[in-house]
């Protein structure tokens, strides 16, 4: 989705996110990562997966519609010349991984990307990534594209090289990021994970996004979204993400019914 937001497009840096709302009345605030921005055109590219009622409604927006958007939020990724950087993206996480890989490459790093998805048709951003990185290793759960493997397979192999990667950045489903952290931990490779937790304001007020990092409570919106993946309490983070699962399921089912009713009504 491309959104006209000139100020955000100008200010945003790799690693930052925005909060969007379908309307300013009863809609929910959804944190979404930024896949790309064009400061000259003043536009932002957001890539999201329709996982619940609110993202479904967002997906139904048409060109010219307005939405509420706040950003850019969170701290930008710390970009430096580390040497060899490995960027691991899973599913929709490949979208925000792209600007980070691009910035790391521009800073002089050798950049290897591991692109993971359930199946070939969910593999996104491949042309963009192939155009900028040194190597792109593709894996899918079902083997329909690249290797039939999990991202942790090639990640482990890269860590066994001598010398190992200087930095690993991982973006994707929490369970994937957790296992990336477990894969790199024995090798002592510094690993950053970008967290997408439940949040409301996204500006450091509600505290809903808090996570334990190294035993300390941190707020994803103002202290993150990137943290040392070896220090994040993944079990707690994942249980917090599931806080509203039962209600989300009900809303999602209701949303499908509403959409079905509307589209059928439209045809009649």
């Amino acid at each position, binding site marked *: 989705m491309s959104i006209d937001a000139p100020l955000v497009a100008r200010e945003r840096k790799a690693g930052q996110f925005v909060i969007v709302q379908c309307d300013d009345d009863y809609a929910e605030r959804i944190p979404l990562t930024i896949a790309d921005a064009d400061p000259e055109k003043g536009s932002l590219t957001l890539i999201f997966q329709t996982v619940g009622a609110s993202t479904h409604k967002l997906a139904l927006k048409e060109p010219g519609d307005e939405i509420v958007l706040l950003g850019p939020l969170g701290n930008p990724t710390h970009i430096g010349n580390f040497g060899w950087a490995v960027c691991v993206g899973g599913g929709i996480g490949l979208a925000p991984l792209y600007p980070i890989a691009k910035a790391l490459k521009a800073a002089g790093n050798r950049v290897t990307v591991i692109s993971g998805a359930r199946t070939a048709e969910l593999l996104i951003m491949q042309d963009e990534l192939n155009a900028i990185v040194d190597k792109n290793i593709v894996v899918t759960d079902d083997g329909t594209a690249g290797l039939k493997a999990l991202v942790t397979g090639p990640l482990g192999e890269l860590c066994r090289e001598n010398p190992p990667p200087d930095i690993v950045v991982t973006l994707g489903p929490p369970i994937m990021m957790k296992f990336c952290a477990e894969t790199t931990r024995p090798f002592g490779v510094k690993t950053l994970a970008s967290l997408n937790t439940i949040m409301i304001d996204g500006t450091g007020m509600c505290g809903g996004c808090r996570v334990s990092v190294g035993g300390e409570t941190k707020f994803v919106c103002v202290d993150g979204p990137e943290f040392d993946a070896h220090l994040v309490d993944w*079990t707690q983070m994942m249980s917090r993400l599931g806080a509203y699962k039962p209600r989300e399921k009900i809303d999602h089912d209701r949303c499908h019914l509403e959409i079905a009713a509307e589209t059928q009504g439209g045809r009649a």
Partner: protein
Amino acid sequence: MSHADSPELAGTELEKLRSAPLSNKARMAIPAQDMPCQKPEVRRGNMGEVAEGYGKEQATLEAERCLQCRNAPCIAGCPVKVDIPGFIDRIKKNDFLGAAAVIKRTNLLPSICGRVCPQEKQCQLPCTVGKALGGVEKAVQIGRLERFVADYERESGQLSAPAAGSSTGRKVAVVGAGPAGLTCAVDVRREGHRVTIFEAFHKAGGVMVYGIPEFRLPKALVASEAGVLESMGVEYEMNFLVGRTRRLSSLLSEDGYDAVFVGTGAGLPKFMDIPGENLVGVFSANEYLTRTNLMKAYNAAKAATPLYPSRRVAVLGGGNVAMDSARMALRLGAEEVRVLYRRTRDEMPARAEEVVHAMEEGVIFDFLTSPTRVMGDDSGRVAALEVLSYSLGEPDESGRRRPIAIRGSEKVFPFDTIIVAVGNESNPLISKTTPELKVDRWGHILVDEKQKTSIERVYAGGDIVLGAATVILAMGEGRRAAAAINEVIQ
């Protein structure tokens, strides 16, 4: 309940009183008027406003209790120096719109202040009538009168906006549309400067829309008062986070603002620093209230923002925010709501009326009690709270008696939801992206007596300076900053 609950009764009494000029003794013989309220068992099941406000007769009767003291100790007790005897005198003369105009000379948000100010600690504390009758609860009910006048004006459809002065060509940025920012914006706009308010949320009002619940402060009322600013020509930039969308320094150096007021409000919520606080089901009061108020989660049929299903709720803290959270939890269907406070009722910082209302509604108070850890179930959700009993020792720096833990008094109670209402840290966004801005060790912006920060032409006020304070104190700071800004950029 006072005997003058019904307007008719108030009316007859008033006629009787008016038959002759009143002596001070006669004025003091009139009992303080209670405000009619929704019955506790009814209101705990709805979001409607708890207090229904005075009618004309009851307001006039209450106004007759004012002695019109020459030294007006009440004005000295008001952070924005409302001419209290002046507006009460207009009420006595049935000139309610005139009374509103007197208040609005110094306070543009009277319907809000009348509802949420801690009057018993401000204007009503030094009231001569209360002093003479031996109790602040017997003081002239200034807050209720203010509310009456403001509501009368709004309902009359003759809501007046202060006039903006002729254009000066100067422009001022106000960061945050809460009570400090709105007040500052009005006073700067009156001088004829252009004013833009930058607000991170999608609605104006700050804590008055995300924090204070509908049942205590109707949101339509906040919207109407924020709308008055628009009619004065104040511009709003919503969904704009200064510090991220645009830096503070860029507003001054590139966007041509002559001065900036920072009123960004409360920041990161404080927690108790006890084990288990990140379990699912532990909420900051900020989150709990924002979900229900600003995001309207109480309306489950319409709102997309979900609510956590709560049956047994513990609220930690003894301030207004704790009262709001507890009473909201009841309204959302919790079976039992307990407020845990480590001191006693006398030391509670909450507004007296809110504590009474909470008790009437069925909130249970566990005084001299503080939690030691939150216990979870196998799925990481809250299951119970371990608490410790306290006794009160000698007074501490705050003048309140220090709570002392009683060793070995640990007990465990089942809860599924914990709401932590023990205050806020400061929001780090602006200070982090503006290194020259000096802050104290808690991150609150340091200001001088004119609210000026360490940066020229940058002023600050409200919770970002004070820590967790009140709407009216924030307004007082916004007003002081506006005066300084008007002086500097004229």
